[in-house]
């Protein structure tokens, strides 16, 4: 059984937004190998964003990006004003 891709709007309900999912997939595919985040890191980032109060309607309110697109770029950081939540060294419970 294959795990279902998370919904790009809420990142976890499993009810996909087909149009946005396609846009995110195409966006990821267009990124060069080095630029594009690996699958494991990508999933980790989305999981963190899924628990963040800054995610509204698939969008990060701190930068305006679709989370599924921003998380796909290796060099991008999490813009949370309390600290980069994607950084492995920063635990979520240590930032405001």
């Amino acid at each position: 059984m294959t795990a279902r891709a998370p919904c790009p709007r809420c990142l976890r309900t499993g009810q996909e937004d087909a149009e946005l999912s396609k846009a995110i997939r195409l966006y990821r595919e267009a990124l060069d190998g080095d630029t594009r985040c690996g699958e494991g890191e990508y999933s980790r980032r989305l999981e963190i964003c899924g628990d963040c109060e800054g995610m509204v309607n698939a969008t990060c309110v701190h930068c305006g990006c679709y989370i599924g697109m921003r998380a796909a770029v290796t060099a991008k950081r999490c813009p949370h004003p309390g600290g980069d939540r994607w950084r492995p060294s920063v635990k979520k419970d240590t930032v405001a």
Partner: protein
Amino acid sequence: MNKFIISADTTLSLIDKNIYGHFSEHLGRCIYQGFYVGEDSPIPNTDGMRNDALEALRGIKIPVLRWPGGCFADEYHWTDGIGPRQSRKKMINTHWGGVVEDNSFGTHEFFRLCELLGCEAYICGNVGSGTVREMQEWVEYITFDGVSPMSALRTENGREKPWRLKYFGVGNENWGCGGNMTPEYYANEYRRYATYVRNFSGNVIEKIACGPNVDDCRWTEVLMREAAWMMDGLSLHYYTPPMFNRSATDFDERTWFYTLRETRRMDELITRHSTIMDKYDPSRRVFLAVDEWGIWCDVEPGTNPGFLYQQNSLRDALIAALNFNIFNRHSARVRMANIAQTANVLQSVILTEGDKTLLTPTWHAFRLYTVHHGASLLPVSFSSPEYRFGDDSTAQADICASVDSKGELNITLVNLDANNPIELSGEIRGRDYGKAEGEVLTSSRINDCNTFENPETVKTVPLEDVKIKDGILTVRLPSKCVARITLS
């Protein structure tokens, strides 16, 4: 050498500082994140307003702020945005981005923001989906200093004293998102709604009617004929379209050339609408408020398209400067303009990302032009050489001059040519000046911009090649630049 003449002893119209005004809508991250982050945010703030944004806007002496829209205004019900924040209505912003609007920024927060910025408030009321009573009560809530249900409600919400409200827009884009009205219908609606936008407690409101979209001269004709006697201002909206390529940063000289040339259409539009206004209002009592302008590009890749978030390049600074010079030259009629929009939306002066803020090239253009705030326009005689691209051309340089209350003469100049500098020689008649100094804004590439990684790629530097001797000013402007020169 290209020559120009400035008559320093012949002042024309006063350049209203409100020409350098701003527009901020509940759209994307303009109000929320751009200005308002809430008191509990880790971002340093004053009563919820981010300090870095306040500092940036004070740096360009923001004179007036239009709020809450835009299209949002004609679906905004002001009572949703007062009272305890936790009990304010949460709604979907149907116009922009489909995100939740929690109304945590409302009337009290807007006036606090204006107070912190030291600017005038310009509120745009809801004609499209609101009632006359709703509009009347909003004005009463804001300005009435006596015993009334609305002043009691304001006091209950923590504000005993009324605020000062100088400008009130009676609807927004009522030819489109504000109700899709005909000019005849809107003129009648304007008269009805404006009747109840009353002056209370010594507060005098200047009422601004919804004006034309771009070149809709019939709208201007009908509004002026039917309702000029009840208005103080008439709005005009014109956005510069990026030509051939809508990216904010990825464009070539062809797009640069034609986009800058298209920017100059603002002059033609103001001239045409002003001519109609002159017919009904020859004394120019009614002002033209270009209360939405700027370049409208595609959003940045990867961002929510409903947020209208675009980068801002050197090209945007030149677009702003060309528009400023046009507004200044029309300042007898144009007495307000509001760039769309202040933060994170369209042609912004600041961009934010989390706790970071950057000043865009447009911010730098605004700062260079603060010298014209409230100054007197001077006549400039100048025939510019042409900037050619293929078979087409446009004037290579643009010059505007004013004299301020201290007697200093300020000149703002734009060199549109992407590749070639220009040498200018100016004869200053009527007054003697012994010192010339200036600043210039340019960069190595036409599409350079400031990013969160490199926030100072595009910035001003002192203008080296400027001097004045025996009443003759000589200056060499680099290619693709905006400059400010002060003579004292």
